[in-house]
């Protein structure tokens, strides 16, 4: 495809409380064996994008380890290129936005041979065929195409995510933020398609952007000024934007429903990830598991319901786990009761015999409780 796929950094206010302290949102474990960025990378790979740039704003090691050379994503190492870009963040944090991140990657952008760029968020759980959208963008003649999804639950989901005001010709009038005031909204997928030359113009122009603008702000200005033709393309597939702990929890839990899983994971559109060669799950005699997704390497001797377990989690006899998300390599000792808990990697629950409440509790990485 004649487009560079750019995985953009997440907006400054997006925070998966607790989990994003240790790694950028795209790097957070999802549904046991994936990381959130696997969805966007798989979409790029399946859309035959040969040049992928991943912008990362913090803790690049976690992502670099997971992505490696890109071979797990079926990205041909000779024909294609996958690069991780870690901008040097100078000055106060108001300058650490995606435009600066992209400016840091200017050379790579200029030297690439592709004519278009597709900028998409790394914190989105989505399955999208960009070939279709690039075609639509080119044939429309628009300067920028932005992708959106029409939702009817914007009062409950997609809080703090941008939404679009779209005119009858599908032109973008302006970008605002969804605060949950209305049920119906055109939610931004924070995905932008344009000619590379235009992106370079935006990055280098003092007029088109301000020192503190994010790309969404620059595009909003361009829409309002009516100088540019910005068109909205609709997407109606599966979409989750992980911008908070609540969004993270709900996006995982909804996958316990097989019809939702079928929407997100389609046979001919594989979601790739790195393998860890973990062995199959061992269920002891006396174990009781209901409505749960269990990753390889787990050892289950207790009761697990309505939960998602990552790799190599041990649940000892008598433990009762309900509505939890447990990240990899955790140990839950005998007779522990857990409900509504998210446990980060390598934690051991040894002494606390009951952690259960109606609110979500987050247990930190490596904690011994």
């Amino acid at each position, binding site marked *: 495809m004649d487009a560079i796929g750019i995985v953009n950094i997440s907006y400054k206010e997006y925070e998966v409380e607790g989990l994003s302290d240790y790694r950028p949102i795209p790097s957070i474990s999802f549904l046991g*064996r994936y990381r959130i960025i696997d969805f966007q990378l798989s979409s790029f790979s399946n859309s035959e994008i040969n040049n992928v740039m991943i912008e990362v704003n913090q803790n690049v090691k976690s992502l670099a380890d997971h992505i490696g050379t890109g071979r797990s994503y079926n990205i041909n190492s000779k024909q294609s290129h996958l690069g991780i870009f870690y901008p040097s963040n100078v000055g106060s944090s108001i300058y650490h936005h995606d435009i600066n991140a992209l400016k840091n990657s200017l050379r790579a952008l200029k030297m690439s041979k592709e004519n278009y760029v597709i900028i998409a968020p790394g914190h989105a759980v989505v399955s999208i065929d960009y070939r279709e959208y690039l075609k639509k963008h080119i044939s429309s003649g628009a300067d920028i195409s932005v992708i959106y999804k029409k939702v009817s639950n914007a009062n409950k989901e997609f809080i703090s995510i941008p939404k679009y005001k779209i005119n009858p010709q599908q032109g973008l009038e302006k970008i605002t933020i969804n605060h949950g005031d209305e049920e119906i909204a055109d939610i931004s997928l924070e995905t932008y398609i344009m000619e590379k030359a235009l992106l370079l113009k935006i990055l280098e122009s003092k007029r088109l952007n301000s020192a503190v603008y994010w790309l969404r702000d620059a595009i909003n200005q361009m829409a309002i000024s009516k100088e540019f033709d910005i068109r909205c393309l609709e997407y109606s597939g599966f979409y989750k934007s992980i911008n908070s702990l609540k969004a993270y929890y709900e996006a995982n839990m909804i996958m316990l429903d097989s019809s939702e899983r079928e929407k997100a994971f389609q046979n001919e559109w594989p979601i790739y990830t790195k*393998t860890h060669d973990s*062995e*199959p799950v061992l269920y002891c*005699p006396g174990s009781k598991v209901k409505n749960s997704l269990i990753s390889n390497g787990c050892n289950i001797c207790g009761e697990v319901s309505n939960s998602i377990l990552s790799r190599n989690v041990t649940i000892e006899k008598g433990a009762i786990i309900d509505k939890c998300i447990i990240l990899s390599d955790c140990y839950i000792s005998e007779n522990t009761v857990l409900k509504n808990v998210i446990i980060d990697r390598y934690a051991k629950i040894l002494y606390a015999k009951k952690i259960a409440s109606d609110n979500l509790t987050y247990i930190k990485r490596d904690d011994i409780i």
Partner: protein
Amino acid sequence: MKKQEMIAMILAGGRGTRLKSLTKKNAKPAVCYGGKYRIIDFPLSNCSNSGIDIIGVLTQYENVFLNSYIAQSSTWGLDTSDSGIFNLPPREREGKDFGVYRGTADAITQNIDFIESFHPENILILSGDHIYKMNYAKMLKFHKENQADCTIAVYDVPVEEASRFGIMNCHENMRIYEFEEKPKAPKSTLASMGIYIFKWDLLKKYLLIDEKAYTDHDFGKNIIPAYLSDDRKMFAYRFHGYWKDVGTVSSLWQANMDLLDSDVELDLGDRDMRIYTANTNDLPQYISSEAEVQNAFINQGCEIYGTVKNSILFTGVKVAKNAIVEDSVLHPHVIVEENAVVSRAIIGENVKVKKNQAIRGTEEIKLVVDGEE
């Protein structure tokens, strides 16, 4: 190229007729084991974990799948600049009749040129038939310490079973003085595991002599006895750990069931000696609210809505509501429809057990393979 202290050759050419229809269209080393693996993953992973860079795999019988499987050498980490897994089927050569490998030793003899290209000091010969985890570097250390011409790995078998094996009789220092094939009155309980380390230059000489002789061209029957009668320095290396032959339907079933037995020491979760296998893109397994799963070993991609007890389920197996799977081994992508029952059976890849169908093994484990009962 990096100097090779030892390269490995895996004998993966056999059919394994006692596995019946499991090997009708598939070489024995490609047969499924342990919820996720194929038999050949064990010697390949052991080699990788032992620091061996070069592995030749001698294939012959129905090797189409096996050939493409081992070609993905990255699965075992052997796709680096100086490492590799090399598929070696019999080949046509100038001045020679195109034929099969005439025996285990002949398979090596026909590939002397391949081995020579690495100038290895030692060569490790492995069969692709057993389930075990072993660090061959330790065996090589033992081989070098004893300045052996040949080191044979041995396993201490129960005395009542010793007559079924090739038995090594050794001095106290483990030097082998006698080898008896299936002795009626065994003098020791050290059974040959079919794992040999040979000093290459010396083995080459014996292989070239054997090539022209009228023998079975077999290591156990011909090469080892020749070494013994020439008083070569041969040592037995004792292996401790799990070692199982999976050559029959019932032993394959039992070896799978061993994974549910906490007394059995085969630990597939051991990070230091992991067994690697081809990756799949399947989701983590889903266990539904109606499911009942007890004492089972289940892999990625499975969806369980029914009952699974004392069983091993491979990738992507689906068990529908009210279906019962007990004491069985279900290979990848088996579907068990509503109300069906599978008991004491091995069900082959992609088989669909239909609604209300019952497949019950008895004392004898029932084998059901796609296309036939």
